[in-house]
């Protein structure tokens, strides 16, 4: 078990394994998303208060969940890279940032579109959930800007890891903002009993699992690129690219 885990930290081994693993996550992920979308949009009953507008939940909640998960992966990997100096961990952190930013942007946009018919406004500047999610997007942008501003990869890894670790505070704020402060945004729904019809919840979990698998596949693909770039002067990359079969 541990041997397999340690082997994963080896860039050439990870590069090969991730190429195999990525489609195995993407295909079931896409199938689950297709099934969940069909269930969520056409099969499950409409909400008695929100009508059909509640169906936005099937893209909004998975996006919001992934916006936080991607940040936790980015910060944890950055921390592991800082403490144990595992090169692959920094590659994981760098790869997670653009995907996390994309899902955060998506969560903000779908939340805003949902808010218009439900709250009567696209955006509320004083709302703690909206503002902390917006700060999360700026943290992602700051992280990526910091990385690209420093030419030395080792220095960029260290500086961006520190920024990511500091930003964890905001992830906690995003999660608990609806409990700590008065917010337009509804409170915890998904994991509370009696807040949602079982069919609605089942379709939502299908979407969350589907999005997570797709996220995993996208993350692996981006880590492969990071590994390739960082290892571009190594022997294994040279041998792989110049071999008659070539790499991918």
């Amino acid at each position, binding site marked *: 078990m541990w041997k397999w885990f340690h082997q994963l930290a080896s860039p050439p081994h990870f590069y090969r394994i991730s190429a195999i693993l990525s489609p195995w996550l993407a295909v079931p992920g896409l199938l689950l998303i297709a099934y969940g*979308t069909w269930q969520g*949009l*056409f099969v499950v009953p*409409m909400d008695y208060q929100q*009508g*059909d*507008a509640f*169906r*936005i939940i099937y*893209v*909004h909640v998975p*996006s919001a969940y992934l916006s936080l998960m991607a940040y936790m992966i980015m910060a944890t990997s950055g921390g592991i890279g800082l403490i144990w100096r595992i090169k692959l961990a920094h590659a994981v952190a760098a790869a997670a940032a*653009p*995907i996390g930013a*994309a*899902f955060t*942007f*998506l969560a903000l*946009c*779908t939340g805003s*579109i*949902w808010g*218009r*018919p439900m709250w009567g406004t696209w955006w509320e500047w004083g709302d703690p959930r909206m503002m902390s999610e917006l700060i999360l997007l700026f943290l992602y942008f700051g992280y990526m800007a910091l990385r690209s501003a420093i030419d030395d990869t080792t220095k960029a890894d260290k500086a961006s890891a520190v920024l990511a670790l500091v930003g964890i505070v905001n992830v906690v704020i995003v999660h608990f903002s609806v409990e700590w402060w008065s917010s337009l945004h509804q409170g915890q729904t998904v994991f509370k009993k009696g807040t949602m019809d079982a069919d609605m919840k089942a379709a939502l979990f299908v979407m969350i699992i589907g999005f997570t698998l*797709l996220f995993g596949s*996208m993350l692996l*693909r*981006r880590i*492969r*690129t990071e590994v*390739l*770039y960082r290892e*571009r002067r190594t022997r294994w*990359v*040279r041998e792989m*690219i*110049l071999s008659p079969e070539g*790499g*991918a």
Partner: protein
Amino acid sequence: MDAFAMGDYGAYVWSCVALTLVIVVFTDWRARLRHKRVYREIEVRLKALEDRE
């Protein structure tokens, strides 16, 4: 058609679905493009080095 109209909320629901599709496809496409570019750059550099040797 009622199923697509979503009451009066069709525009809101479908715009969210469309936006999700666009963002996910765009993010994945950018990742594939960058991988190809990085791979190509390394390949060109290595072949140039090999020719020099």
